[in-house]
């Protein structure tokens, strides 16, 4: 793993998200009400909606375009919908967000 310092945790609002641009497309970094952090591709498997703009509730996010709900830990769509978003390892250390960008920065992937 190559953990890259992305930003301060405080840069993301609680129950909100910000985006990291990568050569493989945008990755959404979510922060929950209890300061848990998740990283998912910012593309809904349904029709490509930007998940970073969804409403965050608990550990789930609802896509802003057609309301599919995803578990942010697994990337799995919930309920009757089928689909999965890629997740990325992310952690918080001393108030900084570290993202595993090995897969994201390699242009070959």
């Amino acid at each position, binding site marked *: 793993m190559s953990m*890259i310092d*992305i*930003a301060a945790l405080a*840069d*993301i*609002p*609680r*129950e*909100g998200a*910000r*985006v*990291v*641009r*990568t*050569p493989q497309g*945008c990755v959404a*970094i979510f922060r*929950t*009400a*209890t*300061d*848990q952090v998740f990283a998912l591709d910012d593309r809904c498997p349904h*029709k*490509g*909606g*930007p998940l970073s*703009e*969804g*409403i*965050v*509730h*608990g*550990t*789930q996010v*609802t896509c*802003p*375009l057609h*309301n599919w*709900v995803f578990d942010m*830990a*697994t990337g799995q769509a919930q309920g009757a919908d089928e689909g999965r978003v890629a997740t990325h390892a992310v952690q918080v250390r001393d108030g900084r967000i570290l*993202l595993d*960008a090995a897969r*994201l*920065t*390699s*242009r070959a992937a």
Partner: protein
Amino acid sequence: MTKNLVVIGAGMASGRMLEHLFEAAPGAFTVTLFNAEPRGNYNRLMLSPVLSGEKTYDQIVTHDEAWYEAQGITTRFGEAVTAIDREAQIVHGARGPVPYDALVIATGSAPFIIPVPGHRLPGVVAYRDLEDTNAMIDASRPGARAVVIGGGLLGLEAAAGMAARGAEVTVIHLMGHLMERQLDPAAGYLLQKDLEKRGIRIHCKGATKVILGQDRVEAVLLEDGTVYPADLVCMAVGIRPETRLANDAGLEVARGITVDDQMRTSDPAIYALGECTEHDGQLFGLVAPLYDQAKVLAATLAGDQAAFRPVQTATKLKVTGCDLFSAGDFADAPGREDIVFRDPGRGIYKRLILEGERLIGAVMYGDTADGAWFFDKIRTGADVTADRDTLIFGPAFAGGAPSDPLAAVAALPPEAEICGCNGVCKGQITRAIEGGATTLDAVRGLTKASASCGTCTGLVEQVMALTLGDGFAANANPPMCKCTDHTHEDVRRLIKSMGLKSIPAVMQELGWTTVGGCASCRPALNYYLLADWPLEYRDDRQSRFVNERNHANIQKDGTYSVVPRMWGGVTTPDELRAIADAADRYNVPMVKVTGGQRIDLLGVRKEDLPAIWSDLNDAGMVSGHAYAKGLRTVKTCVGQQFCRFGTQDSTGLGIRLEKLLWGSWTPAKVKLGVSGCPRNCAEATCKDIGIVCVDSGFQISVAGAAGMDVRETVLLLTVATEDEVCEVTAAFVQLYRENARYLHRIYKWVDKVGLDWCREQVSDPATRAALHDRFMLSQSVFQTDPWADHAARPAEWSPIADLSLRAAE
């Protein structure tokens, strides 16, 4: 041969360590004990009862003169160690050096002081030792004003202690809820409520800017401009390990002094113990793991085998009457599940956090009797799958079968109370049903059961199901969402009748079954709260759908559309030029005229939004709210000014209405039309509110639609003057704002409540005036241009990091 042991710091950890040591290896060491405080070991935890007056200092001393003497300890109290000479194995104190064979650093931690201007003024204290406690006791005369900065464990104990002595206390807390490291928002809300009940003022989301005062503190000024007068300021914002001695001596120090499993530092002759240490990347702030450290270090010094393993800790707040418990890990994380129980009537909240088959965390408020039982399950990692369904009810239910709720209700005697708020028993409800009340509303109307807090609605329905059998059709009006059994209407009613003013308050008092709601209830609650409490409630951006959060319409490819307001559909060459310039500058792929008589710039990238808004603002334009559940457009015809048929100034009236209504949030979008004569060129009669001008005045009609449903408006009132049009329209919109359920357009709502009722409300002069006033009050808060506000902080709209550049390097 005895060895020289020197201990720096007579705190909670070192006191315990010495006890174990004298037991395990009596006579093995000659001990010298330094303490910077002018006293020996005492129970620091108990400073809070000393502050509140429940205990005296003498009662919390743990080791007295006699004990030190009996153990042959040389005490050097009131003397700080100033340096450690590792080469010579000597520590230096003010009153002379002492050689050591083994050295223990147990210096605890130092309070963190935010370096805001004024933090050195007399009257600013921390909360760590007896001196701080006495300073607060002296300052807490009845009527004195104290400000506590920091709403964590220490800050709240300080606040409660001073309040108990009669001081007027305000707590300023940076985060959204109290004790956020131990509690989730629901429990934090209940705690705040209890503290407020005892007169403590709580200001969350408050950042201290300056501590004001000439020769001593006089007041605290916050970033948001609030000023709290203060005779004393207690800063309780956190601690950091006291590592200065270790640092100077060149020991390995991360955030704390690095120790191994035997409590040894990077120098084999030196040990460290307590809050000053860091073990395996972890720091300590509670005493339980420090006692384990003390045991391990005593064994190590005595030559025995022992290894320190940090244990789980549980938190309780030592404020009488605030019953909270928190243990383990309650953060949301992969694969975790919650079990939530709320009893709003008794102010109880319990939440268990499960990972797989294990319980890993618990947060409780109001009833913490089972805390120890849960804590034990967390610590032992027991498999709880078998008891899962009844786990939250604690040991009393353990192993019992979950009961059939209907059978339980059937077993209740007639005099059993069903509705606690209104004291209605089961017998009264059965009698009402037998007397012909077959719907929930009818039962509610006759008995008042479930009419107040509503949490017994389910019980009442079960009594109805039992009494009516197949004749009972469960409430046709479905609950708001999966998080609650309440309907939208109930929630709206209860928000007002119970005075609920925050989302956590609603979720707790109305017994939400989820932790943070869902994408369906959160925006609705946010709307209800801001509509009902315009002055008190603060809009929660994270509870809004993307369009309202970003003040632009999201398009299918994730770009946005930007629509500036064109009052009444009228524009100017300058505005058109500014729009054209913006379209050029931001490479807008499509410029389109909308159905609402304005111009839409489609395909703008998110990070360009603040800049394009700012350009349009500079040209005098504001947000058109084309994205909002709020006032969208007022479509007009040219009317009297140019049209040969015009009877009134329909354009001018449209502009006036738009200026009156813009910025208001409503349950669903609201569109208006104003036509200058019955030829109706502005298509006013398929709008939410349509005004048709006639010779004698204005026909105000409502409840039209031209979407999935097409409806013609129906006449509400005919009035003579433009002023009356404005007053009636504002009053009607307010009636809608206060009563409709979220996402219902006006026509749906009018279908439910009836046009006659609406007409009664806005025809009665007093009711109309009151509605109008409440609307204007709300406008005084919400009629602001969101673009101007957000354009000022463009950084928040771009990616937080760009790794594409890094790869290109």
